[in-house]
């Protein structure tokens, strides 16, 4: 972890959340996607965000590394307001790993080069070190034997695991997963979920947007249910998933279970 970047003037230790979002609003044209969202992820916490499509959960996640610019509200990463004009966005982003629904592997690079390129260009690691880190992370997600393959030669599940390795190679303080298994064939979902679960067990701080209720129940420390641009309900999975209080949550879970 990049110790220099985690400034802690209060000296209070672990208390500060890794992600702290306050009163976040975002609209696309006349469509209000986020209507004042308060949200946080603590260090080493796994937070799963559930909700129907269009509820704003992906937009919320994309605001965390400024792929979307919030209209108003605050996004604090380790206490630093990333919406502040003076904040170096690239410096913030390199500490936040992101995994996309469509994998987004660099199509012109081999799996190995996908994992080394940002280490080289952003972290300025040597070629040898970047390769070494890349191989370690490709092994870790179970695609060590695919280092020389191009994305087009890999299955969706393999591509997504390379994408996870690419993010991990930057030694992120938090990992964001944006519907990481939604574009996969059903038989490939398990491999990716297994990798995500092992990351959680290793103590990675994670924010996961997903439709996988089973993953939320078994892995999440906390589940946040969103609908229509607001947080409707949150708490431990046993509470939110198995004993939802809000009618909107109940309706959503019923639909998902009936599938």
């Amino acid at each position, binding site marked *: 972890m990049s110790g220099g970047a985690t400034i802690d003037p209060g000296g209070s230790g672990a208390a500060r959340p890794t992600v702290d979002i306050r009163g976040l609003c975002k609209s696309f044209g006349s469509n209000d996607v986020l209507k004042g969202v308060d949200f946080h992820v603590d260090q080493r916490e796994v937070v799963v965000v559930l909700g129907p499509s269009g509820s704003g959960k992906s937009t919320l996640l994309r605001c965390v590394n400024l*792929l979307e610019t919030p209209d108003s509200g605050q996004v604090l990463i380790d206490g630093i307001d990333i919406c502040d004009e003076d904040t170096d966005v*690239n410096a913030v*982003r390199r500490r936040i*790993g992101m995994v*996309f629904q469509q994998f*987004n*592997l660099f199509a*012109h690079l081999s799996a190995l080069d996908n994992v080394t*390129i940002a280490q080289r260009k952003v972290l300025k690691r040597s070629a040898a070190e970047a390769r070494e880190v890349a191989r370690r992370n490709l092994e870790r997600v179970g695609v060590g034997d695919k280092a020389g393959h191009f*994305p087009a030669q890999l299955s969706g599940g393999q591509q997504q695991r390379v994408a996870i390795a690419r993010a991990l190679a930057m030694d992120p303080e938090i990992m964001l997963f944006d519907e990481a298994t939604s574009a996969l064939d059903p038989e490939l979902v398990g491999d990716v979920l297994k990798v995500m679960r092992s990351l959680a067990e290793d103590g990675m701080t994670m924010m996961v947007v997903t439709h996988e209720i089973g993953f939320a129940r078994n892995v999440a420390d906390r589940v946040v249910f969103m609908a229509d641009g607001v947080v409707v309900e949150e708490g431990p999975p046993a509470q939110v998933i198995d004993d939802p209080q809000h009618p909107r949550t109940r309706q959503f879970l019923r639909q998902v279970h009936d599938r």
Partner: protein
Amino acid sequence: MTRSQRSNLIQWALFVAGLALVALVLGVTVRWGDLADRFFKWEDFTDQFPGIVTEAARNTLVYTAIGYLGGLVIGLVVALMRQSQVPPARVIASVYIEVFRALPALLTILIVGFGLPIAFGAENLPGFLAQPWGAGCLALALVAGAYLAETIRAGIEAVPRGQVEAARSLGMPTGVTMRSIVLPQAFRVILPPLTNELVLLLKDTSLLAVLGVAIGQRELTTWGRTISNAIGNYTPLIAAAVCYLVITLPLTFLARWVERRTQADRR
């Protein structure tokens, strides 16, 4: 006979009949003997070598290379300007593209060729730009740049947005994202049109003759024309045509081969 066999036979019959008709008309009307004497005289053909290669073909390639490399640089800059955050940069880029695509290349060559020494003073122009063919190459680069800018922009836009988002999410600055992620993929997509532009430019080098060229600076078309005038036989034009084919045909085959290879990587 099946229906498809019958239709196949009819098409062949029509083709052969058409061919016979054209051959008959041309065979009767064309003065083949004169044509062979004036255009296809073997000793006049062989006389062109090696000069047509060492001077004319060489110059054609040099003018093409200068014009194309200049055009690529201009095209890349203008394509990036078209996507700039600065509105005047976008306007200038658009005006440039529209103007140079609207003018005949011949007119651009004349204006630049005559204008450049007047504007800067021939003695102040660096190196080859002081020569007519150098100013002509600059004109070719300006024309090619306008077309290549549009081609490159199309290539950049063909790279999926997710590629940029992934690069940005890893902390890559805009410039690094463009250089390391977007442009390498964009150039693969536009390889066929880029080759097409190269062949068009190669043929347009024949226009440089309007600026007047000295011995030693002739490209293929000028070579063919001047030698034909001198010897009173048109065979050098045919020799020039052969040289063009020898250069352009492998180029298009090579581009098709590279295209197939890179696509095998990606799909």
